């Protein structure tokens, strides 16, 4: 099967500063890749490069076997959809209008767009908010609308940038469960996050697994399974602070904590 996303030796430079250096990554259909790494590691730039929002200095990006540079904006939108890190801020727009706008790539009537948008809002449990203004919704509700807009594009590959940003713990878990359900419905997913523990909530049943790719200073350092027993050691190297593995009844969690030789503050 053609990989939904294949990145080969991607390098991005801007203002003489190398943001990505020789990054390679390939997804199989239905793959879930969590990308973690410190601020400034190049995670967001990697997603933007896949969308053609920033230009690659060298290297190749293929979406569904087709070179990114040869796709029109509409063709690209049919293959990949993006949930940016910044929350939606068009306060005056109606929720339904916002989701309708995300269906730009379809050559369909406004009525058809509206029907599809309504169906998708119901799917993410936001059907009753369709005629409310974005400004009237809470952060968690807005993120649900952003995910509805993401799904409205009906692309097989989803790029998510910190999907649980600024949400309370319960909303964070809800969003990751929703993302897990999307993967099981057949989407391929790349998800940038700081919190590797949140990725667990996207895994259900627990036997299921996902890939964790660690990035630092524009390079990929590791590509391993979330269930890998030595992941906390890799995180220690990645963030340069000690990580410990804490096993609980609900599963094992990786927590940063000062270790021996690290002064407690």
């Amino acid at each position: 099967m053609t990989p939904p996303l294949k990145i080969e030796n991607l390098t991005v430079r801007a203002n003489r500063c190398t943001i990505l250096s020789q990054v390679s990554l390939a997804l199989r259909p239905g793959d879930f890749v969590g990308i973690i790494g410190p601020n400034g590691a190049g995670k967001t730039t990697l997603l933007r490069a896949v969308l053609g929002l920033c230009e690659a200095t060298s290297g190749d990006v293929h979406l569904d076997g087709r070179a990114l540079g040869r796709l029109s904006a509409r063709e690209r939108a049919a293959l990949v959809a993006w949930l940016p890190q910044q929350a939606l801020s068009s306060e005056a727009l109606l929720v339904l209008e916002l989701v309708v706008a995300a269906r730009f790539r379809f050559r369909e009537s406004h009525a058809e767009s509206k029907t599809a948008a309504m169906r998708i809002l119901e799917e993410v449990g936001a059907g009753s908010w369709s005629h409310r203004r974005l400004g009237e919704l809470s952060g968690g509700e807005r993120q649900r609308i952003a995910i509805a807009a993401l799904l409205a594009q009906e692309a097989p590959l989803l790029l998510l940038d910190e999907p649980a940003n600024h949400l309370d713990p319960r909303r964070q878990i809800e969003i990751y469960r929703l993302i897990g359900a999307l993967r099981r419905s057949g989407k391929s997913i790349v998800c940038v996050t700081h919190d590797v523990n949140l990725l667990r909530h996207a895994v259900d049943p627990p036997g299921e697994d996902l890939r964790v790719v660690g990035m630092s200073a524009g390079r990929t350092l590791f590509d391993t399974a979330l269930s890998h027993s030595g992941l906390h050691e890799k995180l220690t190297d990645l963030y340069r602070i000690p990580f410990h593995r804490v096993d609980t009844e609900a599963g094992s969690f990786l927590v940063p904590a000062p270790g021996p030789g690290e002064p407690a503050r």
Partner: protein
Amino acid sequence: MTMRRPWILLFVVGFLVASPFIGPSLDGTRGDFVFWSLRLPRVLLGFLVGGTLSLVGAAFQTLFNNPLAAPSTIGTSAGATLGAVVALIWAGSDTVVGLPLVSLSAFAGACLVTLLVAALASSGRAQVHQILLAGIAISLAASAISSGLRYTTDLNTLAQSVLWSLGHLATINYGTVGVVLPFVVLVVVVFFTQIRAFEALSVDADRARSQGVDVRFVRALTLGVGSLGVGASVAACGPIAFVGLIVPHIVRLAFGASQRILIPLSFVIGGAFLVLCDVVARTAFSGREFPVGIVTAGLGAPAMIWLISRAGRR
């Protein structure tokens, strides 16, 4: 909201039909002439020009995602004024193929300045607010050159150019309407076909690109076609202040931010607004015409302030 819309449209259409009858009595031998040859073309042109300025303003505000974007702020009006001043000084009232050189030169000035801004926008390197700032800078530069030229000229040309820059609908005939109409049709057709792109762009430009909008193309097209429309409008009536900036906001505050409402209603209400201002301009001071550009600002600004204070209370 939805219930109110048909009534407002009906009211607008009713006002437009009634507007040529407003004013001194049409009885007597000159009545027919005044109605058919003076007032009707004036109402037609006022509607087309007001509609175009306001429609282009609405599209620019969406395009730049900025409430201050309008033909007057990105340099179109200043470019047109510069063109008109240059023609008034060096060519006076000459005509080329039946069209006044002042209008042709104003048209060229409007298009040139907007094309400069459009070139910046489509290069793709500049950020949206930088494009807008560049437009303001170009606008100020064009105004400075116009003022410099006026300063060096004689009093008569100075008076003419100041009068021109206040905006006027008085010296209109069907010929002017015929020249402006194709540009208005172009703007309306192109902008209406871009409504889906405007909807995506109104959320944010990067999201729109990821959703399949060719943002560079839409920007260049909107700026290019918009400058033709505004250029033609300004060439016919002078730079009319406030319509392009304020009417889209009035529509947004009264009917919501949806592009599907904003784009068509900006045209209709902008057109009706300028006709209303022109009725005031020609009837309020009996026997004496008042420049319509002063009336648009005089009526538009208080209406805007009232709507903002109401929106704040909601």
